[in-house]
């Protein structure tokens, strides 16, 4: 009761605010619950679930996608578990379960929702297998930490060894199923990941170029960065949709996804460059001076002293940029007609069974849910990393 008085009813004005906002919240929540459970017609999602999640991926090759997801889950959990330190105090088992729940509960709930919506046994089996591969990864990581033969393997052998299976599976998926058939949520992820990976080295080069003392290099880098940052992504995509083929020899005519990846890479590189430049500027001058005192030349100072620290400091900002990129992949759907999640969501409302029934709300709600869960989980992880690294506190 004291809590209520202090937090909700401090004064007359305060109480008024509580009442107003409280009633609005109740009204909105009630409407949403009614929509989700009573009036919403979710069969459009059920029927089109495959189209929404993977687009027109060939049915017979879908096992490659599930296999890749399982391998990736295994890799991530094994790598994470095997690099945990045995020296620091580990909280009790119950507490660890609670923390895992906090971190991954939302993801697990969404996975369960998807399985429930699809309503068939195959997806239940797939969900169980993904869970199994995560647990297997944990066991393998644990074994690495405790069992003596594995313990002796140096890190630079162990981690690539773990990565072999997922990389092979992903490469197989890419080679077997033509990229133009990929679609749905899968293609949003794919474009985002490829673009951020490709833009990373390019962005670092641009950042170094912008800080360089060589005037021509600085001019070229600055011009590029300012040009790209001043342009709307939507217009760049539209331009790439019509212009890219003019700039390459006709034998290399790019497909829609290749265009999307090109534009997103070039676009993100400029933003990554700004982030890295900010990181470089935040390194105290003392570091550079210490490097000079040790007799290192500029290149060595950059690669061994400043850049590693800068990159470590800007990891949260990088993750933020990735989240932003992930959400912006929806623009590729409108501008380049890539069959991404939002595009599919709009297109399926025109099917014979569903035309003109106002089912756009259901599809948009589903699309919003998937994007929201993805972005929210990633931003929470980034906050966690920020806290663990102690960025800005040391």
């Amino acid at each position: 009761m004291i809590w209520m008085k202090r937090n909700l009813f401090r004064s007359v004005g305060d109480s008024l605010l509580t009442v107003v906002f409280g009633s609005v919240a109740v009204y909105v929540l009630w409407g949403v619950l009614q929509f989700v459970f009573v009036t919403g017609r979710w069969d459009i999602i059920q029927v089109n679930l495959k189209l929404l999640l993977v687009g027109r991926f060939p049915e017979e090759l879908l096992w490659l996608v599930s296999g890749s997801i399982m391998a990736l889950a295994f890799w991530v959990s094994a790598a994470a578990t095997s690099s945990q330190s045995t020296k620091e105090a580990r909280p009790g088992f119950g507490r660890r379960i609670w923390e895992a729940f906090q971190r991954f509960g939302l993801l697990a709930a969404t996975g369960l929702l998807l399985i429930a919506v699809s309503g068939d046994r195959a997806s239940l089996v797939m969900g169980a297998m993904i869970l199994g591969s995560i647990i297997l990864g944990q066991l393998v990581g644990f074994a690495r930490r405790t069992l003596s033969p594995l313990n002796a393997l140096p890190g630079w052998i162990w981690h690539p060894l773990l990565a072999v299976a997922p990389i092979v599976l992903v490469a197989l998926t890419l080679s077997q199923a033509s990229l133009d058939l990929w679609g749905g949520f899968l293609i949003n992820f794919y474009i985002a990941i490829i673009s951020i990976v490709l833009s990373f080295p390019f962005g670092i080069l641009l950042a170094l170029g912008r800080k360089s003392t060589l005037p021509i290099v600085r001019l070229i880098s600055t011009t590029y960065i300012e040009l790209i940052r001043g342009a709307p992504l939507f217009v760049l995509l539209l331009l790439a949709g019509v212009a890219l083929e003019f700039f390459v020899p006709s034998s290399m005519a790019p497909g829609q996804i290749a265009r999307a990846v090109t534009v997103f890479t070039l676009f993100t590189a400029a933003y990554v460059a700004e982030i890295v430049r900010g990181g470089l500027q935040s390194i105290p001058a003392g570091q550079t001076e210490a490097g000079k005192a040790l007799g290192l030349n500029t290149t060595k100072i950059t690669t061994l002293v400043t850049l590693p620290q800068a990159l470590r400091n800007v990891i949260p900002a990088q993750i933020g940029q990735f989240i932003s990129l992930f959400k912006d992949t929806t623009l590729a759907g409108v501008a380049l007609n890539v069959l991404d999640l939002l595009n599919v969501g709009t297109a399926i409302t025109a099917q014979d069974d569903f035309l003109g029934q106002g089912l756009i709300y259901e599809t948009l709600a589903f699309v919003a849910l998937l994007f929201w869960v993805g972005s929210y989980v990633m931003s929470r992880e980034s906050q966690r990393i920020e806290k663990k690294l102690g960025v800005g506190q040391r």
Partner: protein
Amino acid sequence: MSSLPSAPTKPPLWRDIRVLRWAFQLLVLALVIAFVYWLYGNYQTNVARSSIPTDLRFLDNPANFTMPGNDLDQSQPVRDAFVQGFYNTLRVSIVGILLTTVLGTLVGIARLSKNFMVRTFATAYVELIRNIPLLLLLTFMNLAVILQTFPRIENAWLPLNLFVISNRGIAIPWFTGSGGILLAVLASALVLTWIVVKIRGRVSDINGKPARGLTWGLPTFIVVMVAGWIVLGYDWVLPFVDDRATSGGLRLDPSFFALLVTLVVYTSSHVAEIVRGSIQAVVKGQSEAADALALSGGQKMRLVILPQAFRIAMPALGNQFLNLIKNSSLGATISYFELTQIAQITVGNGSPAVPAFTLTLLVYLMISLVTSVIVNIVNRRLALVER
């Protein structure tokens, strides 16, 4: 007794750092130029093969379309349509920036409120909006709000008989007469008000009584505006429903409204986070000093915290403003006739795509650069002068 070094010998050419630096730069420059030249060569070959025009002559062709909100005739050249699109982009951007700052600041302060309900509401708002794509929000705003909530023109809402609200737009009362002269009256009213506030401030400095700038300034403003209105013979025109349209008054395009609301809601969620972070970054001592001076909560926020917080937040805010301007290009998906929509329509009507979109890109670049220069100027004025 070490021997002094002899006169410094010049290092050989291939180890001389100055030569190396310049050689490297020239190499980079040569690579970039070669790359650009290769691109240009491909462009020429491919364009020659496909007989598509690549110059800007299409700007002289008749537009063959009209758009709401202006008097553009369809026989006017495409160039005029582009200019109108440019104005529309500016319109939504400027209004959007103003509203975003207000809403974002309010939500940012609300996130730090002591009231649990307000705090939770603001947090839920920010976390919800920040994590969904803008395009999704825009599609939703267009469909759910404009098309579902607003009534059909036959059943339009007529609040106070002053406005006409329907899904074809919002009509507000407007004045008859020259807009430019009214703007001049507005400007002079603002100048006079500012003078009055300054005078009151000086008077208050001398005799120590409260300045009461607002109580003097506001009536001044109102008096000048009303006087100008009456003297120059302006009159109101109220909108009304006329068959299936609204006559009289000024009709705001529903797409403009949807785009504006979406941009404001989306960008203000980012601005709220920035404002919150910058309020928390204001040194705690300031807040405690304000408490020691017995300033009320509102006074503390207004006079002590917010000015300092804005100084910290300004660069990040400028970034968000730029984002808003660039995001306005998504208005093309809901048929708001801003720059990108104009470009798409002229391309559909036969204009060559590459020059049209390149021109659009250049215009956006210009707008962005001007805005960042303005933000930089504001930044420098606000920046603390370190002793």
